[in-house]
């Protein structure tokens, strides 16, 4: 197991190198550079050149890349061109928001998706089954940002149940420790701050959850249907076990295997949706910041953020693989 983890982490290194080279070349090819973003269309060629020299962009790409790699080995990702702050600081400040949002979405998706998928399978061909299959199809086909707008319009602007934007009401004056606002609130015992942060998570979380929820419902349903036809479920029934034991120990445990895999993949893919939901709800995570960074040609931020996201993505999948070997004894990690 230990060797498996080490090997997977070592495999990450060439992937990261390749990714960084690709990104580097690609980003340098973007028309216009940070100088255009800073100066707009007015800047004189001299001013542009000065800015480029200042940022070290006048040197050959290879040398720039060498510098980037040397810094990266020291875990130094450089300074943002537009905010003049350390990329790492920017990341640590914004990423927790996205993580909170992603976790909320996954909790909603898993918490509703698995029971719903299970019930749909048990009531196959009845109303609940058709409704959840149909509903999940519509969920997959609805643009996330549109759903976000609808939720915002109904539950925030019309009914006023939830706040419509931001991560927390600034007038609360909550203490920041980790930048995970809910966690901070719990740690400092500022219950109102934690509750407020949670309320801010509900609507964007729901919007973001729509696609993973739909997919989890479908996979759970299909998986349960398959397991229900397995011989060992019949054996369990033949032993006279109560329905409860058959369901929990024999059906659900086996049906969860494919669901676990899909949860890993979905979590990695949630970032795209996060960019859209964060924009609609003016939720300060990395999504909106990244979109800005592209428009500003903020190279260090783009490089740094994407590299970290890639690492996180790989780590999430590693955790999924490890947990998979925990629920399925037949899978041995080597």
């Amino acid at each position, binding site marked *: 197991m230990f060797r498996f983890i080490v090997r997977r982490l070592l495999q990450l290194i060439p992937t990261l190198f390749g990714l960084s080279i690709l990104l580097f070349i690609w980003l340098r090819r973007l028309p216009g550079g940070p100088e255009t973003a800073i100066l707009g269309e007015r800047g004189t060629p001299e001013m542009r050149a000065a800015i480029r020299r200042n940022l070290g962009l006048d040197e050959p790409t290879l040398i720039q890349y060498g510098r980037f790699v040397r810094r990266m080995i020291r875990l130094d990702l450089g300074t943002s061109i537009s905010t003049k702050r350390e990329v790492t600081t920017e990341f640590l400040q914004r990423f927790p928001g996205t993580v909170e949002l992603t976790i909320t979405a996954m909790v909603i998706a898993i918490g509703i998706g698995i029971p719903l998928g299970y019930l749909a399978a048990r009531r196959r061909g009845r109303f609940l089954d058709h409704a959840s299959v149909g509903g999940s199809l519509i969920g997959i086909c609805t643009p996330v940002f549109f759903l976000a707008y609808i939720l915002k319009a109904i539950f925030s602007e019309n009914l006023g149940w939830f706040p419509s934007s931001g991560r927390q009401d600034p007038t609360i004056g909550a203490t920041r420790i980790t930048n995970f606002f809910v966690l901070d609130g719990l740690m400092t015992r500022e219950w109102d701050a934690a509750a407020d942060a949670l309320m801010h998570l509900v609507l964007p979380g729901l919007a973001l959850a729509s696609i993973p929820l739909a997919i989890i419902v479908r996979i759970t349903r299909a998986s349960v249907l398959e397991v229900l036809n397995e011989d060992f479920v019949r054996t369990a029934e033949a*032993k006279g076990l109560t329905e409860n034991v058959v369901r929990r120990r024999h059906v659900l445990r086996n049906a969860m295997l494919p669901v676990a895999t899909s949860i890993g993949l979905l979590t990695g893919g949630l970032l795209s949706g996060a960019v859209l939901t964060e924009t609609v709800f003016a939720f300060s995570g990395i999504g909106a910041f990244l979109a800005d960074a592209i428009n500003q040609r903020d190279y260090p931020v783009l490089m740094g953020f994407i590299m970290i996201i890639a690492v996180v993505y790989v780590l999430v999948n590693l955790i999924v693989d490890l947990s998979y070997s925990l629920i399925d004894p037949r899978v041995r990690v080597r």
Partner: protein
Amino acid sequence: MALLDVEELSVTFARRGQRTVRAVDGVSFSVDAGEVVGLVGESGCGKSVTSLAIMGLLPKQPGLQVAGKAVFDGTDLLQLDDRSRRDIRGRDVAMIFQDPLSSLNPVVPIGIQVTEVLTRHRGMRGETAAKEAAQLLDRVGIPDPKRRLKEYPHQLSGGMRQRALIAMAVACQPRLLIADEPTTALDVTIQAQILELLKELVRDSGTALVMITHDLGVVAGMCDTINVLYGGRVVETARRRPLFRQPRHPYTVGLLGSVPRLDAGRGERLNPIPGSVRDLLPWPDGCAFAPRCARRVDACVGEPPELVLTHDGRSYRCVNPAPVPGLTPGEEVREVVPGQATPGSVPAQAVPADPPAVPGLAAAPSEEETP
């Protein structure tokens, strides 16, 4: 009175837009306490569906219809509600399945799969249950049972898995054990061991055993009474010796003729039954076996053959049975029961595409013995 009395059991699967499929078509047989009874026939003759119907294990699906009676110790199993049926299953009536690998839960240790029966029916928990489980494994011949309890099915060999399944089935000393092709998926050498084990368990505990198989060798070595099934019906019933010495139904004759024998002369050839189990007449139109039968006569077609009970306690469903030397036809007959059949439906075997979705009725997956 018999321990289990199955009367006119029939199972039909109705599917929207398709012909109704009749997998079991009026099967009757009985099992006495401590007796070993064989249900024999080719695959698709309805033997597995019969056993699943008795256990109430047929997958619930719209269009499934089970009719007839299966009286166990005075109660009709088919009329029980779900709860009391669960109480009886595993405690009074237990079952062993064909493919030991797929019949065991791959992600739950063997130990838990054994103890869950003890917990459910005998109220055992924790240490007591574990101890009893180890004893059970030991009794079915699994070496080092304490260690095996913690292992998962994929870590056991095929024979060991079947032994574990048997341990689960006999955990509550049931009065009736149904074994559905328990050795089909196993190596020949392992088969003999498993059969020996079953025989031993039955002899020691006085459990009655219903042995479902297509293998006449298994039947010859174990069963007291044998029921031969064809096309979802019992076509011949007899004690073991008379059946093997003097089969009456042409299908039984054919089954025996297609088994290679050591004592056969060198020039003798095997006599396979021509055609396949699908070349079959729906019972209402006559004898289902008629298309393949070497002894068919005009009377075979038109209406279902009557069940003939003989003076020596056998029965067969045939208008032109194999003759017995020194016995004029008709002399032996004690009673004739008219054959019934529900018209309109088609026996399961006659519908090749889309067989009924019953798990375990598909072809047995080939077993890979993993030591």
